[in-house]
């Protein structure tokens, strides 16, 4: 059951954080223990925001420097790139692969943090030995990536994931708000989520109002506009 897995993983991340505010570091550490890998790193935009160890840090660094690797491909396609044995990928990433092997990584699982066209980042998991993730481990890895994505979207406010976040109308409404405000999809989605949060409503219900043209978003006045008043 999908809700059960997401809830279980949320508990593990919260436990990892303890008394601290949940951060990317806690998600990475919980993913390493929960999925059963040796390390994790996260790239947001063009920079590494966290790595659980030097190997994970090196993997992130080389992909940024060389512009190739599983993380780069996951960012481009919007789908995960699951490499069970880097020993067999030299042709695919000729510069990255030997560097990654040298550093001590043998399997890499790159999970994009994307909501349609909204590209937040990539969560990379690695193992020192070759071998696939089991179906259960893959499901957990995807769920940790979901949790990381929610954290990046909502920041410290991130609480229980909204079960309606995958509804078609939520994504349609994001597109409509994008056009109403003349902003990026990421900003439009953030506005939609913030509205739902502030009104204590499900995203689906807010989205339905937007798609039904009962709710419009207005551009926020810029600081200059406010100064003029």
């Amino acid at each position, binding site marked *: *059951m*999908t809700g*059960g*897995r*997401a809830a279980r993983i949320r508990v593990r991340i919260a436990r990892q954080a303890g008394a601290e505010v949940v951060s990317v570091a806690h998600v990475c550490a919980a993913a390493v223990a929960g999925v059963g890998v040796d390390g994790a790193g996260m790239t947001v935009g063009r920079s590494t925001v966290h790595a659980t160890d030097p190997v994970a840090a090196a993997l992130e660094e080389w992909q940024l420097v060389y512009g190739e690797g599983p993380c780069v491909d996951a960012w481009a*396609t*919007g*789908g*995960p*790139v*699951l*490499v*069970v044995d880097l020993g067999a990928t030299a042709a695919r990433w000729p510069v990255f692969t030997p560097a990654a092997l040298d550093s001590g990584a043998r399997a890499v699982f790159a999970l*994009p943090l*994307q*909501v*349609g*066209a*909204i590209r937040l980042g990539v969560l990379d998991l690695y193992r020192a030995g070759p071998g*696939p993730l089991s*179906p259960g481990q*893959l*499901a957990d890895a*995807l*769920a940790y990536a*979901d949790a990381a994505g929610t954290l990046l979207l909502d920041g410290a406010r991130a609480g229980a994931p909204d079960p309606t976040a*995958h*509804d*078609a*109308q939520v*994504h*349609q*409404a*994001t*597109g*409509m*708000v*994008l*056009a*109403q405000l003349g902003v*990026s*999809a990421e900003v439009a989605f953030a506005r939609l989520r913030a509205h739902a949060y502030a009104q204590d409503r499900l995203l689906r219900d807010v989205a339905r109002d937007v*798609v039904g043209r009962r709710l419009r978003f207005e551009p926020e006045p810029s600081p200059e506009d406010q100064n003029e008043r």
Partner: protein
Amino acid sequence: MTEHLLAETFVELADTLVDDFDVLDFLHQVTVRCAQVLGVAAAGVLLTDQRGALRVVAASTEQTRMLELLQIQTDEGPCPECFHTGRPIAVPDVSAVADRWPRFAAEARAVGFAAVHALPMRLRADMIGTLNLFDTEPGALGADTIRLGQALADVATIGLLQARAIRHRETLAEQLQTALNSRVVIEQAKGVIAERRGLDMDQAFTLLRDTARSRNLGLSDLARSVVDGVTVL
């Protein structure tokens, strides 16, 4: 159903598979052809999100209520049952399952559907999703129609997974997740177009698809370009 239509359908789908093609465009085409060839009112495809739930990826009509009816099956209905058992599920009369799947039955009736069938989409040992068929009159589909429907479900599976490349579970997972994310991009693009042009979601999808065809672009690529603001439709 005419043999001519059937032949034309398989030729068209086979043609698509030979070229470099857009998976979402292909799946949409399969659902439209399913409805025509099988003589049902509508068809939709749900895929596993590999976290334990199904998600909508394509439908023969993009009307909001149709997508919602498919979406309900994230929780209940013939599709999850088909997915978990790996067997085709026939619901010849939707009102007979009102106790078992109350939300599904109510929504199906509200949209005007009386009969529903779910056919498994499977690659070897792995279930990847279901093909859902809706009809406005009650009654079970005949054995021949089901067989043909299953053949179309198999074509959809092969196309989706570009099966020549699927030697590993890893590739399967990569393709499924990419398709699901592409579906989200299309929903976002529908919203952008609907707002700018004052269209409903079905019209927005049609404009997106027709533009992709006339410019010879992939549906997902064009959708991404619209959401990223590179293309204005």
